[in-house]
């Protein structure tokens, strides 16, 4: 069918072949017939041929080469999607001979003008690297270039390539660090995970430990050069340390460190669990102790997700709770167990609950545990009993309560429960055996009933160990055991021998014969372990003529005081693995795991991250908040240099903010704007910096525009100026909607906007009205121009109910009035925003301005520039449009 001329037949054939591949059948013998169709015109056939090719090219290298030329042609295609897909398939064909071709293709694609092709290039890098690692150096060059890319589309993929090819080249990140931080919110979800993980590692090498104090304590007070951040640590114990260290240089968080923390925080709200986890681990590893808490809420939210997600999250939470218990304490109830949870989730929740147990909440937790014990899921009950044991060892006050509860369980009908309780009781008793001889007695009685070997063995061991406390019962138990010795399990037999030996040493009068008897039985046991033990014990304790040196010490050997076992969480010390990683989950190092480096002793030079200007004033202590961080899709590449700009503005006023990359056209434009506006407020200057970037970005893709328009000196009136500012306004629209549009009263008129007089002070009888075109989008109606009106009441009395009434409007013109100002006290001023649809004409809008007492006729006349909106197009488009 593949040789047929009809596409439909070919398609049918390819579908069958793909279905066979999917089922795992070998179809490699069809290779020659399939590969012929690579140039087929029908896209669906083509696509399936690609699927086939990629699957089998490795096995049929020579034949696969036949297809290469098709892809090479595709790489030159004017359509970016075709270029990208050609590169994608080409790089997926694992044939060593074409490595040079691939290298070339990747290099070319990396400087393609389409971000999508560049993204594909980034994807191709690891493929080529795994095919031929010798290309590493060349590939690193490409990665370096792509890292400098400013589009969100590329960022995730290139960091992924970086992680795979050269994770050790941390120096490549320096220059791009701030950009990556700022872009992060807009990168697609999967890219976010990779970037966050990479940045965690990066931050560990570049910044100082914000929790240094705590570490000092942990390390036993060895003094390090850097001191403490007293404001961030709540531990009282550290006060002394603080005093000692207070003379030293205080810890100040690097603003870049802060930047990372701030920019990742919104991602805790992601719908993607992997992103949330990535941010959580970043905070856990990098944030000051006081700030880590924010992740708890998000992690708890993930517990509502699929059970697999719960499984992973609970593992990580379990590790976190060991180090930072307080963080999850408020969410204790979220870890309560439902009978419908799968067992593995129940056990993990139990682990978390146990870790969270403290003096204050232990009673609630124990009450919960009580209900769990009655569960139908026996594995879970066993785990609960162990958890009770752990709580009891850690929290002294409840030990007796727990012990009593466990003893009650001994009468449970279920053997597993009893056995588990016995084992746990044994451990608990070891801590303070003196007080609890009655429990030991009770347990001794149980030997008649309990059949679970482990539990029997535990009881026997207990009796043997503490036979002084139960002198009367112990020999009796031994007697019973001797009777059933032959039928016992091996583990029980060993404990019988132990018990016999211990009793022999303490109470040889009563038990001598019994011991002899047991040892004799053991001598002929099938198990050599038991025979060995019996022989050893006999030599050790029974005095013979050749009495070895050892037997003198028999008592010391056997009845030595044994330390109580420490019941510990299996999650202890897991945190040396990066949380959220596979290695952490498995608690072994997985292949390709990148160790999380320790904090450096001294911070490496932070200036490596400065992008182009040297001054970069470091904000000390607090960093300026740029609240306008942006809505996701608006961010894009423009924000790249934001921190830098804001830094410089916050500290040193206007500086030479020319971008190194922006050429004369853009810098002259930005320069002119700068000169046009004398004193700037921070908002204003931020806009300006935006416009620089804006310009730069446009310049990248719309070079033609600059050439066409040319730089113009006065930005207010000319199209270019308008173009600049209103486009940036558009950018800011999403971010600053609150203060600009919805609550217009807070707008501060920007210095660069020209004001026109609407009503003179004298004609207005003290009321002075000015208006300017704020160049903000007027939200209620996109067709309207926002006009910002400032009322100043210079009269001695207050003006009441200021409002507009439409008087004579040109046909088609519409006005959206501002909300009435009820009172304007004397000497005060107020600002409002109204919308006017001028219908593309420069005709004035004639309006009536009313106060409580008078009416004024006023008119708003728009300059041409204020009516325009920026728009981008390619050169061709423009010419076409021009030709009309």
């Amino acid at each position, binding site marked *: 069918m593949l040789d047929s001329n009809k596409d*439909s037949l070919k398609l049918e054939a390819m*579908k069958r072949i793909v279905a066979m591949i*999917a089922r795992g059948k070998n179809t490699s013998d069809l290779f020659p017939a399939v590969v012929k169709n690579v140039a087929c015109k029908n*896209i669906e056939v083509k696509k399936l041929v*690609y699927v086939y090719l*990629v699957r089998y*090219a*490795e096995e049929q290298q020579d034949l696969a080469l036949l297809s290469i030329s098709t892809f090479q042609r595709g790489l030159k295609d004017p*359509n*970016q*999607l*075709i270029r990208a897909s050609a590169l*994608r398939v080409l790089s*997926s064909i694992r044939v060593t001979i074409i490595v040079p071709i691939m290298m070339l293709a990747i290099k070319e694609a990396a400087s393609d003008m389409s971000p*999508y092709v560049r993204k594909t290039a980034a*994807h191709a890098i*690891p493929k080529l690297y*795994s*095919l031929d690692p010798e290309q590493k150096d060349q590939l690193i060059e490409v990665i370096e270039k792509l890292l400098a890319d400013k589009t969100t589309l590329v960022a995730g993929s290139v960091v992924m390539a970086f992680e795979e090819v050269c994770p050790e080249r941390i120096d490549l990140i320096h220059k791009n660090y701030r950009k990556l931080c700022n872009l992060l919110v*807009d990168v*697609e*979800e999967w890219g976010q995970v990779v970037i966050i993980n990479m940045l965690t590692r990066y931050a560990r090498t570049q910044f100082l430990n914000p929790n240094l104090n705590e570490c000092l304590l942990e390390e036993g007070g060895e003094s390090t050069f850097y001191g403490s951040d007293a404001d961030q640590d709540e531990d009282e114990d550290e006060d002394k340390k603080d005093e000692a260290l207070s003379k030293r240089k205080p810890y100040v968080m690097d603003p870049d460190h802060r930047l990372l923390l701030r920019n990742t925080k919104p991602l805790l709200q992601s*719908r993607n669990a*992997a992103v949330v*986890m*990535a941010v959580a681990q970043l905070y856990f590893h990098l944030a000051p102790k006081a700030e880590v808490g924010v992740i708890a*809420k998000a992690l*708890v*939210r993930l517990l*509502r997700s*699929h*059970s*697999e*997600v719960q*499984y*992973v999250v609970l593992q990580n939470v379990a590790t976190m709770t060991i180090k930072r218990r307080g963080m999850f304490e408020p969410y204790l*109830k979220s870890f309560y167990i*439902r009978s419908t949870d799968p*067992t593995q989730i129940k056990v993990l929740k139990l682990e978390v609950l146990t870790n969270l147990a403290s003096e204050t909440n232990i009673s609630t937790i124990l009450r919960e545990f009580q*209900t769990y014990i009655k569960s*139908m899921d026996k594995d879970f009950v066993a785990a609960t009993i162990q958890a009770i044991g752990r709580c009891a060892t850690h929290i002294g006050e409840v030990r007796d309560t727990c012990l009593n509860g466990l003893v009650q369980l001994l009468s449970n*009908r279920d053997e597993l429960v009893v056995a588990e309780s016995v084992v746990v009781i044994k451990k608990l008793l070891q801590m303070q055996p003196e007080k609890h001889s009655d429990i030991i007695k009770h347990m001794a009685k149980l030997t008649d009933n309990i059949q679970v070997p482990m539990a029997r063995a535990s009881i026997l061991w207990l009796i043997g160990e503490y036979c002084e406390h139960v002198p009367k019962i112990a020999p009796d138990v031994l007697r019973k055991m001797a009777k059933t010795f032959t039928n016992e399990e091996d583990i029980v037999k060993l404990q019988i021998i132990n018990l016999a030996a211990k009793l022999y040493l303490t109470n040889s009068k009563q038990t001598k014969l019994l011991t002899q008897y047991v040892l004799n039985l053991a001598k002929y046991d099938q198990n050599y372990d038991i025979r060995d033990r019996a022989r050893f014990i006999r030599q050790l304790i029974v005095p013979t003529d050749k009495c070895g040196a050892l037997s003198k010490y028999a008592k010391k050997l056997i009845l030595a005081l044994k330390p109580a076992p420490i019941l510990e969480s299996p999650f202890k010390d897991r945190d040396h693995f990066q949380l959220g*990683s*596979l290695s952490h989950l498995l608690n072994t190092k997985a292949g*390709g795991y990148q160790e999380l480096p320790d904090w450096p002793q001294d911070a490496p030079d932070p200036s490596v991250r400065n992008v182009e200007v040297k001054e970069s004033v470091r904000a000390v202590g607090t960093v300026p908040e740029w*609240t306008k*961080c942006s809505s*996701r*899709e608006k961010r*894009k590449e423009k924000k790249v240099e934001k921190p830098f700009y804001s830094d410089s503005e916050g500290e040193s006023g206007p500086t030479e903010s020319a971008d190194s990359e922006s050429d004369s056209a853009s810098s002259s434009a930005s320069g002119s704007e700068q000169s046009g506006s004398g004193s700037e407020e921070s908002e204003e200057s931020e806009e300006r910096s935006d416009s620089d970037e804006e310009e730069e970005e446009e310049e990248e*893709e719309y070079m033609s525009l600059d050439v066409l328009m040319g730089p113009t000196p006065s930005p207010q009136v000319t199209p270019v100026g308008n173009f600049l500012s209103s*486009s940036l306004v558009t950018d800011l*629209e*999403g971010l600053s909607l609150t203060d600009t549009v919805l609550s217009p009263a807070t707008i501060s008129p920007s210095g660069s906007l020209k004001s026109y007089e609407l009503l003179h002070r004298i004609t207005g009888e003290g009321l002075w009205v000015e208006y300017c075109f704020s160049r*903000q989008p007027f*939200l209620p109606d*996109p067709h309207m*121009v926002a006009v910002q009106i400032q009322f100043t009441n210079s009269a001695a009395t207050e003006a009441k109910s200021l409002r507009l009434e439409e008087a004579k409007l040109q046909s088609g013109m519409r006005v959206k009035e501002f909300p009435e100002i009820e009172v304007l006290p004397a000497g005060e001023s107020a600002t409002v925003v109204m919308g006017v649809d001028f219908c593309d004409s420069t005709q004035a809008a004639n309006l009536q301005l009313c106060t409580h007492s008078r009416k004024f006729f006023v008119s708003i006349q728009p300059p041409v520039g204020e009516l325009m909106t920026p*728009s981008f*197009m390619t050169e061709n488009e423009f010419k076409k449009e021009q030709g009309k």
Partner: protein
Amino acid sequence: MYCSCCFSLPNSSGFSVATMNGQLKKCHIAITSFIDSCSPFLIPSSLSPSLCDSSHNLDSLPIVAVEMIHSLFLINHSGDIFLEKHWKSVIGRSVCDYFFEAKEKAAEPEDVPPVLQTPHHYLISIYRDRLFFLSVIQTEAPPLFVIEFLHRVVETFQDYFGECSETVIKDNVVTVYELLEEMLDNGFPLATESNILKEMIRPPTILRTMVNTLTGTSNFEERLPSGQLSTIPWRRSGVKYTNNEAYFDVIEEIDAIVDKSGTTVCAEIQGVIEACVKLTGMPDLTLSFMNPRLLDDVSFHPCVRFKRWEAERVLSFIPPDGNFTLMSYHVNAQNLVAIPVYVKQNISFFESGSGGRLDLTAGPKQTMGKTVEGLVITVHMPKAVLSASLTATQGSYTYDPATKVLVWDIGRLNPQKLPNLRGSLSLQAGAPKPEDNPSINIALKIQQLAISGLKVNRLDMYGEKYKPFKGVKYVTKAGKFQVRT
């Protein structure tokens, strides 16, 4: 997406006014970058997913670490592999044997550990819709990353085929394969937004299947999948509807544990807002709440502008086309949660161990004046319970002796006449009195009520001229609502 990217002169039509909606901006990048190449070419980008990689030449080259997902196996309930897909070199099916071993050990399919370690690979699996999705990775990768991706795959299948079952996947194996190709490139997720995928690969419909078989036309979109290039990857370009509608369903679930005596051990409300938006063009929506303070913890669809939420507590977004989950939230735990129903229960077994007695009564508690519907009470009985002979005053009950689950389907709860179920239970002969307690799970539904009191204030649309039809619906359901006995 806006295609009329003209340099708008004052009198040109279209965007004549200085104000402009912010969205325009970002589409320019996408548009300009492909306008130059806008030949009516067929799409190969989608054709050519790349997979392979990794060290194929093992003897001559060192094995290089490759990241992320290597292969995917779909395994049905009985343990047959019915689909496999490799994004790098092929890994033999034998790798799944480790998984089968673990599956044998686990009592329930849910109990299979999601992450398994084998000598050379790591297996990460999820269990959904009675199918196992097993992915193979070779090196360190965040497990949640893989798990989340697998769930996304399942959701895509559900979106495409209506359900995700073995038969459906087998019937659409070629589409499934193409989807998988698009979703991962070299083991790294590429396009996971269903809107983009649908632009590249059309979901099958009965009509189209018929047409395709008759005419032999293709299943692929012949347009360029522009969504992949845009910075709003979740929305298709050029969406058109004759009826413009936007529906929002506020669905709240009560998670609660009520103890034996009827006191609430813990209760919280989890809510989601499911949206179905069918609007032409590129609308920019703003949804505000009467009482946003209620929301304690939220997570959003990527389309929601987080900064505006932080600043003003409104949801501002350009919606994806069609159905999507706009946000999910958690209602502040400090507020007391209203528990809509109570269940009085008395389940006891005789000391002799021959049988037991069951008496259940359900009644309304805090229903805010609404009717409780779809009330279903499920009791997981101890293993020893053989059968139940009960009488229900309302609804019907079934007892499945294999799973030991008693289901009592009550339906609408009538506050005047409380439904009651009582009767006797018989135990296995000779079995001792069970010590473990049955647990009771409740399912219910209350229409026109969000139990937390959350209310949508208004929905505004910017960026488009037409008037959309808007609708908001509230539903309260029981989530993990459990009564202990």
